[in-house]
């Protein structure tokens, strides 16, 4: 749009200069076609993609679920609303418990790490964010290994006379969701703590407020928006997850799980996924907007150059390090037992597996399908979403009146994967391409994961874009460079580091994707996540563990390669 303007100006300018030749060439170059430069075609393609595979499916889903209520030929069962309320309450209870506990742990942890000078802060942060690169359900089955009926902690507690209650149900769900969501909460709150100017705390202290009192009268209220944001992330992640309920939910029914089980089961009522999907969309959207309103009320932007307050209190430092280390170990325990289990034979009622073996890995690798499928998904989805991310990033930055579209691209942040899966299948169930059902080809899986993971990649790339001034492009354009050329020569080199980060995040998010895949995997396209879930549900815990470790390794290798490339790139420019 901006280029259109500048083209017009050029045309105008050359006319006033006179000269028939110039006038002719300027008319030629500003014809409608070249005015709509190739960049705009990219924008169009990206918008069409998201509209077709996210916006339209979601609206179709909402409309068809509403129409269910107006259908008289097949009324809903009379006890439906009672059941719906029960499941809703279960879901919200799970969300609230997880959120309160996770945020409650994350706040003191973040305070100790950022402000009270515990030793090796970056180590703890790195370790505590391991769950970010692993699928949620790994914490679920690790919880079973630790706390299940034959789990080692259960056994240890029994020795000292404590009977640990059954973890199948709310308890297990809360535990695994806490394990999985702690990094989100921790990182957001740490980011919040970085925004508090030192002076604010110093003033409070000089008025007689003790260090502890400063924390709860000033610091915590100050990061209230971040705490809300962290809470929102944790809440939405925990209520939208389907992997954990599948593995450890027992008979505790939650919305996401009901959507899934009714969708895949022949016995299920096909109307329930539609109604529940719409219902959870409503809950999420209301929550997001409500929180947005609360955050606006308290939004404080404070420019400062003084850095943040760091306390140097010896005993707090020492005990703080101890506490942080203890919590970190607790949170890493699931991963440790996963590693042990992957090398073990039978592990029940003993402290360690009976014997150690590589058999699990051999068995798991023998079936090359899941690994191959996962790799194919990585190599198709990741480039797609990184490419889309760059297009959208550039579009939102340069064309102001398209910013609202960002609400759509970011939607998957708050929508559970099962909902996206259901909406796509429901909308495109009758579409055929090249004589094949779209929904039974791998294309639909690629599309689903791409749509769902796009916001993560887009956010990363937007962070890179935000550092570039549009005036640079204007300068390049005024020197006569075309849009695409301007972008490739001026803009792209600067966002390259973010593109590499986006690739890493893309890989991680594609590999760990489970919920939408659960809904729509076409025949023969089970990826590793699905296999892990399948192994766990069939009781092959050690195979699940081995597969999980391979999955983490793939993520690790992908990350390392991308890191290496970005470093080489940096050296080239340095």
């Amino acid at each position, binding site marked *: 749009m901006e280029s259109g303007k500048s083209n017009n100006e050029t045309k105008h300018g050359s006319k006033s200069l006179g000269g028939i030749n110039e006038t002719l060439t300027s008319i030629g170059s500003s014809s409608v076609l070249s005015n709509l430069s190739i960049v705009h075609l990219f924008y169009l393609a990206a918008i069409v993609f998201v509209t077709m595979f996210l916006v339209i499916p979601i609206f179709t889903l909402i409309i068809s679920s509403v129409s269910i209520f107006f259908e008289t030929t097949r009324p809903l069962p009379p006890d439906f609303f009672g059941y719906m309320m029960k499941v809703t309450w279960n879901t919200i209870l799970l969300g609230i418990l997880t959120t309160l506990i996770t945020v409650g742990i994350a706040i003191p942890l973040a305070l100790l790490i950022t402000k009270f000078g515990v030793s090796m802060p970056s180590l703890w942060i790195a370790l505590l964010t391991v769950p970010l690169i692993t699928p949620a359900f790994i914490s679920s089955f690790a919880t079973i290994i630790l706390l299940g009926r034959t789990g080692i902690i259960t056994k240890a507690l029994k020795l000292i006379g404590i009977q640990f209650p059954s973890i199948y149900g709310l308890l297990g769900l809360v535990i695994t969701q806490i394990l999985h969501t702690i990094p989100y909460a921790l990182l957001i709150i740490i980011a919040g703590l970085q925004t508090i*100017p030192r*002076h604010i705390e110093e*003033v409070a*202290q000089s*008025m*007689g407020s003790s260090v502890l009192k400063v924390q709860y*009268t*000033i610091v915590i209220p*100050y990061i209230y928006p971040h705490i809300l944001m962290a809470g929102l992330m944790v809440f939405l992640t925990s209520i939208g997850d389907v992997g954990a309920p599948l593995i450890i939910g027992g008979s505790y029914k939650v919305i996401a799980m009901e959507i899934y089980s009714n969708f895949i089961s022949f016995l299920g009522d096909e109307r329930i996924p539609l109604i529940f999907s719409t219902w959870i969309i409503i809950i999420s959207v209301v929550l997001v907007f409500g929180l947005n309103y609360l955050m606006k009320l308290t939004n*404080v932007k404070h420019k400062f150059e003084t850095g943040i307050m760091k306390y140097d209190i010896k005993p707090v430092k020492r005990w703080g390090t101890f506490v942080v280390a203890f919590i970190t170990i607790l949170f890493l325990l699931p991963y440790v037992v996963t590693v042990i289990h992957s090398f073990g034979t039978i592990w029940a009622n003993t402290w360690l597996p009976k014997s150690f073996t590589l058999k699990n890995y051999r068995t798991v690798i023998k079936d090359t399908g899941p690994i191959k499928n996962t790799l194919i998904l990585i190599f198709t989805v990741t480039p797609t979403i990184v490419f889309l991310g760059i297009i959208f990033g550039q579009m939102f930055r340069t064309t102001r009146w398209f910013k609202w579209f960002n609400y759509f691209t970011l939607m998957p942040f708050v929508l559970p994967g099962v909902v996206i899966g259901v909406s796509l299948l429901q909308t495109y169930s009758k579409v055929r391409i090249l004589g094949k059902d779209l929904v039974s080809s791998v294309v639909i899986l690629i599309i689903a994961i791409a749509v769902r993971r796009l916001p993560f990649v887009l956010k990363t790339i937007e962070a890179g874009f935000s550092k570039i001034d549009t005036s640079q492009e204007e300068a390049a354009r005024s020197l006569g460079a075309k849009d695409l050329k301007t972008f490739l020569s001026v803009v792209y080199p600067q966002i390259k580091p973010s593109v590499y980060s986006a690739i890493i995040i893309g890989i991680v998010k594609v590999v760990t994707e489970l919920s939408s895949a659960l809904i729509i995997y076409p025949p023969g396209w089970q990826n590793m996540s699905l296999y892990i879930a399948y192994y766990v549900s069939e009781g092959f815990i050690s195979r699940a563990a081995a597969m999980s470790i391979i999955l983490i390794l793939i993520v690790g290798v992908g990350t390392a390669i991308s890191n290496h490339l970005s470093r080489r790139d940096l050296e080239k420019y340095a």
Partner: protein
Amino acid sequence: MHEERYDIRIVNLVKKFGSTTAVNDFNIEIEKGKLVALLGPSGCGKTTLLRLIAGFEKPTSGDIVLRGKVINDVPPQKRNIGIVFQDYAVFPIMNVFDNVAYGLRIKKLPREEINSRVMEYLALVGLTGYEKRMPSQLSGGQQQRVALARALVTNPDLLLLDEPLSNLDAALRLRIRKEIKKIQRKLGITAIFVTHDQEEALSIADKIYVMRRGILMQGGSPREIYNNPKNDFVANFIGKSNIFYGKVVDADENYYKVGIDGSFFNVSRGKYGVDRDIEIDRDVWVSIRPHFLSVRRNGDSSSVNDNDNRINGNLNRGVARVNYIEYLGSYTKGELKLESGLVMEFELSHSSTEELDVKVDDTVSYSISPENIIVGDTIKGTD
């Protein structure tokens, strides 16, 4: 034991950050109820000194004595010191009332008393009626008043202000500066005001301490510092000045004759600069304030004499070329190039004489009274 005359004494204070010495062997004493300005260029250690006094930094060595008590190891919470920062540091999450009430609530005063004191201090800073506002709804100046009320309401022994006006626009700066001074007088509170703006320091302070690279250069009343700088750094930093370096080439009982790159100036001795004699051949710094130059169009020399005929014989005079000139309404300022090549700034106030009507490259005559030139032999450099 007699009652301590000084509210705060700083004794041989040193603060090192690794290899940088931010505060170097600092000694000052501040009398009760005085407002002193701590003045110096950026990075000279003003903030560090303030943070040492407030207790946010531990001294490397030396003592801080508040009301007769060494407070080196007293935590900031127990020092009873009020602080106002450049960036206001109001609590953005509390309304104006709660901001000011914060310290009183910490002290667990009864509700009634908190209410009345908060209202009293809000009235003092002119913010009555703003109690319910959030800081984001206040202008910078209003936020700074909240910060001031908040710092004062707890009745501190000492008020520290770290460049409190720097973030405000010029007009507001003048107004709040006046208000701060008035309030400080009214409450009789001892205050340290940090600034790098010499005009601000001159206008507000009972006493100014000029600091440079962590070292105290000179302390005294604004008048003393301005009229009687102890070294070239102070002479240059306080007020505008032409600073030159030269030698004393001759002296009698009334005057020094100072040579600067081939120009010679008579300077009254004993009046300014140094209190002891400077020997002949000593290297000296010379300060000539721009407004002490009398400039006339060439040929009008008769009027020059009228003003200064008391010391006629020793008047420094000559002709010079106008290098540069600026008309600024109430005064004209510019640059002269003397015959010897020395370049000097001048400033002519229009109220005292008729407007100077010269252009660049015109030749003018100038004169400087020997009483208006300051020399000294403590050379520190001007940066």
